[in-house]
């Protein structure tokens, strides 16, 4: 009796799935210890990067 061959579906990571498309972690907050997720909304006049830069500017002014 010949051996039987079984076909197994290869498991693949769902890297292009819902989670990958909808989750974007900006980083971790030192203030709260939690992840900070990127907002889903569009059309902002400022970016998170600009905000962080502005915070550094405010810090520099406060340090003077």
């Amino acid at each position, binding site marked *: 009796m010949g051996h039987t061959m079984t076909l197994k579906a290869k498991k693949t990571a769902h890297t292009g799935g819902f989670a990958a498309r909808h989750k974007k972690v900006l980083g971790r907050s030192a203030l709260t210890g939690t992840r900070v997720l990127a907002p889903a909304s569009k059309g902002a*006049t400022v970016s998170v990067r600009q*905000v962080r830069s502005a*915070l550094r500017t405010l810090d520099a002014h406060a340090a003077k």
Partner: protein
Amino acid sequence: LARQAATSPEDVFINCPFDEQFRALFHALIFAIYACGFRARSARELDDGGQTRIDKLYGLIETCRYGIHDLSRTELDKTHRLPRFNMPLELGIFLGAKRYGGSRQKQKRLLILDIEQYRYQKFISDLAGIDIHAHDGEPEQAITETRDWLANVSRRQLPGAHKLIRLYRRFVRVMPKLAKEVGVDAKSPPYVDFERMLTGWLLDAAGSARS
């Protein structure tokens, strides 16, 4: 097989008034959501002219596993002397998705907020049996309710309510300076810009101007 509509376990739908009177509470809800590691979603982010508003709401509600529904605004509109029905409608859509949707939609969890805990019995008594939480119109109470509820439904370890309130006070103090620095209206920042200011601030470690 019919497609199962997925829900994002990070997304929290906020259903609340967007007017000036409610702004502090709206900002507090957004703050609590992002500070707890989730993402706020609301009808304020909808700007696609290709869909009707109700279709946009269906899509948004379908995506979110969590929903915070504030039923505070029961007063009559000053101009038309009519009540606003959008919040109860969006709550109904959310409850309908949870009740009649597929297995993923059934995972939806919701928090219903009002000024007083039992006031709803006078205007939406069909909600009897659902636990409604009161924020007394206080942003800090809304943060506590949101944080405690998110910790409960997500089973995640989240920062404590007292810590979040301390941070919220710091953020509120810094926000006018920050808004001025980035050229955003500090009194009534657009929702999309407020989200950027908040997430940027959360990412930054405590500094002298940030506290």
